[in-house]
């Protein structure tokens, strides 16, 4: 009798545990807001674009500050050699050089360009930050900025990817961007790793300042082309 009782108790416990686990698995799905589901805060595409644009504006301002600091404090002490021969490692990426050129590009291509740029700068900035910590050229304030820059590039890329996903979901752009998420296709570091390391700090800052400005402008054009009602 006692054995039967014990077995029953154990069975009951087992059933309860199973129900608990299974039930929880079904009941609480991950709260991902897709297609404006009820119950979660829905961000419109325009809001997403605004956030991304603000992010890129901040990134650009930081890069400008760092570049001007560099030119003010560090550059006079070094020999100014080969200024015209500046060569950014992202030169291989074809980017539109004007408004009409940018407007002529398709949305998907523009988005792709943006993502390519952001991907291309992740590693060099991290490397730059590492170099700065060990050097005495910059103070701590600049070192923090470099760290923040590299972090922001990473965040901005994720944001733009989200925007792209949303646009694809909304059918505004085709799904040709799905291949962009793979790091091998976008990351030019395998091709230009040597070049990126050959860049001096000054060139790096100069190139990044320009590229961040490109990203910002492309995003603005993209936004006013896709969601023109707010602030365009």
């Amino acid at each position: 009798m006692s054995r039967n009782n014990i077995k029953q108790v154990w069975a009951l416990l087992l059933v309860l545990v199973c129900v608990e686990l299974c039930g929880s698995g079904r009941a609480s799905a991950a709260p991902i807001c897709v297609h404006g589901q009820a119950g979660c805060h829905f961000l419109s595409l325009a809001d997403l674009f605004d956030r991304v644009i603000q992010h890129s504006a901040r990134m650009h301002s930081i890069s400008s500050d760092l570049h001007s600091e560099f030119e003010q404090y560090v550059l006079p002490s070094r020999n100014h050699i080969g200024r015209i021969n500046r060569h950014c490692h992202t030169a291989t990426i074809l980017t539109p050089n004007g408004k009409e050129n940018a407007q002529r590009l398709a949305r998907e291509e523009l988005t792709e360009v943006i993502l390519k740029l952001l991907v291309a700068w992740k590693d060099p900035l991290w490397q730059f930050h590492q170099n700065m910590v060990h050097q005495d050229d910059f103070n701590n304030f600049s070192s923090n900025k470099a760290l923040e820059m590299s972090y922001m590039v990473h965040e901005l890329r994720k944001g733009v990817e989200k925007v792209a996903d949303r646009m694809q979901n909304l059918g505004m752009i085709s799904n040709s961007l799905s291949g962009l998420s793979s790091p091998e296709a976008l990351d030019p570091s395998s091709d230009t790793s040597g070049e990126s390391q050959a860049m001096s700090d000054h060139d790096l800052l100069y190139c990044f300042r320009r590229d961040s400005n490109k990203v910002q402008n492309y995003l603005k054009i993209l936004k006013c082309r896709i969601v023109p009602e707010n602030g365009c």
Partner: protein
Amino acid sequence: MSSCGMCVHPGISHPGKPVLINCRSPEKETFTCRWDPGFDGGLPTTHHLYYQKEDSDGMYECPDYQAAGSNSCFFNKSHTSIWVNYNITVVAINSLGSTVSDPLEVDVMYIVQPNAPENVTVSVVETEESPHLLVKWEPPHEADTRSGWITLTYQLRLKRQNKKESEWEEYASGKQTQLIIYSLHPGEVYMVQLRCKLDHSLWSEWSTTTHTEVPDYILKERSIWIVVTVFSAFIILLVTFTLAMKRKYVKHCLLPPVPGPKISGLDTQLLKSGRSEDILSSLINQSFPPTISTKDQQVDYLLVFDSEQVTPDLQNGRTRTKNSIDHGCYNHSLLMKVNNEVKVGSREMVEQGYSEGLESTFRKTKSLSTDVTSHPCPQKKPFNNVTETPKQAPVSSKYRSLSHHKDLWDSLARHLDYRETVVKSQSNCDDKHNLSSQNIVTPSKAIGCVEVQRWTKSIGLQVQVPEMDKKQEDYSKVSVVENDNIVLLKRETVPLNCTSCKVRGNHSEKCLQKPCKPNMTVPAKEGVHIGSNGYVEPVIITLYKM
């Protein structure tokens, strides 16, 4: 003209070096470069601009020298590439040579400077609360803000025209193309200017000034009055509160307390209590000799006694001869109580029915008075008036009547000049005195006393005001006290003293020169003389029939 390669004419040379001033792009799509030509060397000189782009090889010349004016080069949209470095140089060429300027590296991204905002309109919007300025404007027409290529931020500045040395007030407007300005001065003319900038570019120039006038309105004055009113109300409240807190000090300052009359030995509280015996006792109870600082407070008390004996206890160690006048009476309490102990022919102490304090006094002096036998009728002026004293009943009546005059006592005490008034009674004087026994209130102690002599027929207090030199002069008997400040004195009917009008002393006296007749009655006269010490002194001697 010959080409003179070797000769040099004065004033002619190859051109000076031109200087590139700057390159500017107003809308991030085109840009213009300007240079300073420099010295032309006295010969017609031409300038050429050449540029080189970063991403392409080759030298190119400026596509447009005219569009932007002289000494300028305009790059249109097709020739403009953003995020591309331009290397620009200017060459000045004349017949003698050419000069190349320094190169200028330009990235269009960083030479952007927009034009000033356009169509600035300022209007005054009047509301009931306060008017405000509504400023509206438009971006420069060439800036493309629709495609998101350009984001402009604006800035406004304001200044009052009439007020000299006023500074510009700057307001940031962000991306909006209108702004509302509050807190205006009425009746003033305001000047408004605007400028804008691209994302991180240079600020544009200030736009042309727009003038606008704000009409007058009353609200401003009203606000000033409101402020003034509130402030003054606050001040008044503060003052009132302070005064209320310091009530006593203010009262003391504005209405200083009037000093009350001070009479030594006079207790106002005692007076207020209304107990006559206490009052009189306090009036009379005074140390001997009276050590009074001021004359005002000098109160002499009546010392009435009749014995010719020595009454040593009347004074503190002082002995009195009979018929002597002593200073003051010392036991004030004697005056009060009448014990109805009247003995005819003896020295009696009469205690008036006023206070009990005299009992002991009377008892004490009673013993003394028993010896009063026959003291001779004074050779001196018989000053005593001994009236027949009936038994106690009339005594009591007398006293009762006297008791009615307790107010008289008060006033008497106050106004009479209480020197030593010793009333001696000659109780044993027989009928020529026509006096009966007197009731004397004698002092028991030498503190001070009042001896009251009373007689049957008349109510009065025989007050003897002796002189300071203790002369046995005339003594005036008070017949009646009128009106609280008039004392009618009774002249002695002793025939010996018919001419006793010469009471000497400090007091001037009026004498009624009346014949010394009994049965003559002379009405009392006034003649209240107020002595120097403020007390009413008996100066009238009247005759009346006893």
